[in-house]
């Protein structure tokens, strides 16, 4: 199949970027990233700079790949990262537009690569349980209801790719942040410090420059792991509860 690609090229964050047009011969069995490999291989043969994109595990779990394909983060297929998207879902002769995540809090590094370290800082603000190695009691000391553990697991399955932010018209990180707040807050081990956690993480999220949530819901629709916006509702409840219902107050840095 012959394809036309319109790809965002940008040298770094301080220079302007623009779309470049390429053509590539692809095979329906290729993954989307392998199609880009083929393009890059042909660019290198002509001694041109390849298109830079982030990728690693290529099995949908590391969260590295991050590109908007024809207007949708990770492309047209539901529950699928760009690395697991295959070319059989595209048509011969089609034009495909490929852009980076676009959000103020995710500055562009080069071409399709953005800086997502804001997510790390949100986790550092409180996305953990304060236990040192060696302090743990026996694993079976606290029974946890099967359904609850499974709900926590569903929230914990977030791969930190940032598609939710890229999809949101406000570039909000509420889905990402609430998934971690929910995962930890649902477990009895994490409940202990959840008042402080939810305030700290929300404060950090705001500091990073992510937008607010206006209940559009596109984050859930585009999330490759199907993280539910129920998590956002849960975080909102916990946030309000912790601000008005407790003595704990986290000040903005």
């Amino acid at each position, binding site marked *: 199949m012959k394809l036309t690609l319109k790809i965002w090229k940008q040298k*770094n964050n301080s220079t302007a970027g623009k779309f470049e047009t390429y053509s590539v011969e692809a095979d*329906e*069995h*290729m*993954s989307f990233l*392998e199609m880009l*490999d*083929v393009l890059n*291989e042909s660019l*290198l*043969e002509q*001694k*041109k*700079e*390849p298109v*830079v994109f982030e990728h*690693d*595990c*290529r*099995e949908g*779990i*590391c*969260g*590295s790949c991050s590109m908007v394909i024809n207007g949708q983060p990770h492309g047209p297929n539901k529950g699928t990262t760009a690395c*697991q998207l*295959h070319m*059989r879902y595209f048509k011969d002769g089609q034009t495909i537009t490929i852009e980076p995540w676009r959000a103020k809090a995710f500055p562009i*590094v*080069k071409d399709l*690569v953005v800086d997502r*370290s804001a*997510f*790390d800082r949100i*986790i*550092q603000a409180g*996305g*953990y*349980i304060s*236990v*040192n*190695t*060696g302090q*743990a*009691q*026996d*694993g*079976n000391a606290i*029974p946890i*209801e*099967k359904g609850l*553990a*499974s709900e926590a*697991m569903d929230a*914990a*399955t977030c*791969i*930190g790719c940032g598609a939710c932010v890229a999809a949101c018209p406000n570039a909000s990180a509420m889905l990402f942040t609430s998934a971690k707040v929910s995962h*930890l807050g649902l*477990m009895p*081990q994490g409940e202990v410090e959840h008042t402080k956690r939810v305030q700290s993480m929300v404060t950090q999220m705001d500091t990073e420059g992510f937008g607010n949530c206006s209940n559009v819901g596109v984050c859930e629709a585009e999330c490759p792991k199907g993280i539910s916006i129920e998590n956002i509702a849960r975080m909102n409840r916990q946030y309000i509860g912790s601000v008005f219902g407790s003595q704990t107050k986290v000040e903005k840095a």
Partner: protein
Amino acid sequence: MPLKANSPEGTLDDKWTKYRSTMNLVAPNNKRRIDIIVVGTGLAGAAAAATLGELGYNVKAFTFHDSPRRAHSIAAQGGINAAKNYQNDGDSVFRLFYDTIKGGDYRSRESNVHRLAEVSRNIIDQCVAQGVPFAREYGGLLANRSFGGVQVSRTFYAKGQTGQQLLLGAYQALSRQISLGNVEMYNRHEMLDLVIEDGKARGIIARNLLTGKLERFGAHCVVLGTGGYGNVFYLSTNAMGSNVSAAWRATKRGALMANPCYTQIHPTCIPVSGEYQSKLTLMSESLRNDGRVWVPAHKEDVMAIREKRMSAKDIPEDRRDYYLERRYPAFGNLVPRDVASRAAKVACDEGFGVNKTGLAVFLDFASAIQRYGKTEAHSNGIHNPDPKKIEELGKKVIEAKYGNLFEMYEKITGENPYDVPMKIFPAVHYTMGGLWVDYNLETNIPGLFALGECNFSDHGANRLGASALMQGLADGYFVIPYTIGQFLSKEIRTPKINSDAPAFMEAEKDVDGRLKKLLSINGSQSVESFHRRLGLIMWEYCGMSRNAEGLQKGRKLIQELRAEFWKDVFVPGSDDEFNPELEKATRVADFLELGELMMVDALDRNESCGGHFREEYQSEEGEALRRDDEYAYVAAWEWVDGGDPVLHREDLEFENVELKTRSYK
């Protein structure tokens, strides 16, 4: 160089306890003055960095990824073993120890493996306390499943994403230490050299991948948790970025690389579909509980399938060869990984492969669907179910057990495995070899430690399923925080390491020269094309079966390819910018040396054991033939640029287990 394992005195089951209680400590006021570099933030690295930070050391942690959460530990599916005996099925520390030694075909060190089995229990406790959402029973207690052909259920899991959840646990513990200021995190920094001063590891040279700038970092010691080198084969289940460079740079500075030829080839992966293929995807070992492996028994059927004139369903039962069930009646489709992989290779070598490349066998769930369908119908009170109903009910059971894997298979291949059998083929998955370490996880270079997959220590010649996660976390959480004190207690008077000292400046100059050289070649072939060619040589001559002639030829071919690389590679861009092609070039350059060492090691080992199968050493039935009298040793290699690698042996002593032939007939 005499290799001393430094295993403590005492009986097997109290060595670690006694040692831990008597080893040297570093007082809290001194810990604050000691710097530690940790390279790699997967299970081993992140666990170590977090724990050392908690203890009060000044830790600097490095990853080439944009975030510590991306390390390839995240992709582990199946689970993590621990000798908890929660199922009351007779498990114990000794049994886990024994299974691991035997599974490794008696090529690992008893004392290390026993310690691993001991601390396995603490890992589960620790992870639960961190909030890892392990699977649970209705009573709220932790669930287990059986795995990898052992006779007890000791595997803890979180859906098919156990690695992800354990890594996120370690990442969160690390994030907490970063926020407390105990760990300084360097994302997008790749270690390109090790710095040695007065014979001790004292720092690294790292490249800031965003700016391209080389940076010098000094510390009282260096800990590597940088993973395995399966990508030397180009195609593997490893992530695209997984590489050997940190460990290989240490080897170039004098560290010994042990048993590099021990490679685990996983039997159930999705086959290669074309030349453009960049990586292979694993289908969990658990599928072999219900899937039957077969190829057609007649060549004309094979051809008909390849030419798509027939499908698997058209082949009647009596024209199929369920070769694992035929060759290994006792274990059938559940033989260990190395045995299953070799059997698939034999079938394909004989011309029975079932896709257009001839490199695939069927993994068929039709019998399981029938079996489960009948049981379901019966338990639903349907006494004369029609075949359609049976199939419908059976598929539901299969979906509940393996739904996510079947979905992934369909995404990649476009075929529906509920209706047609999966096509699978073995692929490189894990490397048991790695940097040689003693009982303290210290390499032969004082102050250089290696943890997790990047060391050689616990899995011998073959790793059991669900043991990689166990080892990574054992090393990081529960071993290195203690054993590092044996070295650091002697360093409390050592002032801050000066990274402007001559050793650092020279190492930086070396790295800079190497990068400039790569950019200046300006040849005509891409890095990727060299990597792909290296992979083909490795797979052909040092893959699932090896022989002396092939290994000699393979070594020569790699030497030639390496020479060609340094003459004709093309790396675009410059070294003062974000340049992934340059990163790839430094990694492939290192693989081009490691590959040669793997050939040398495989050639030295004139026996077959675990993942290493030498065609010259097999029984009459074609099974692996170990030679304990001559080869019960660890082969630790000293790399010599431009010369022959030098072998250093650590003889393995078995005091607690009897060496037996593994049989699955």
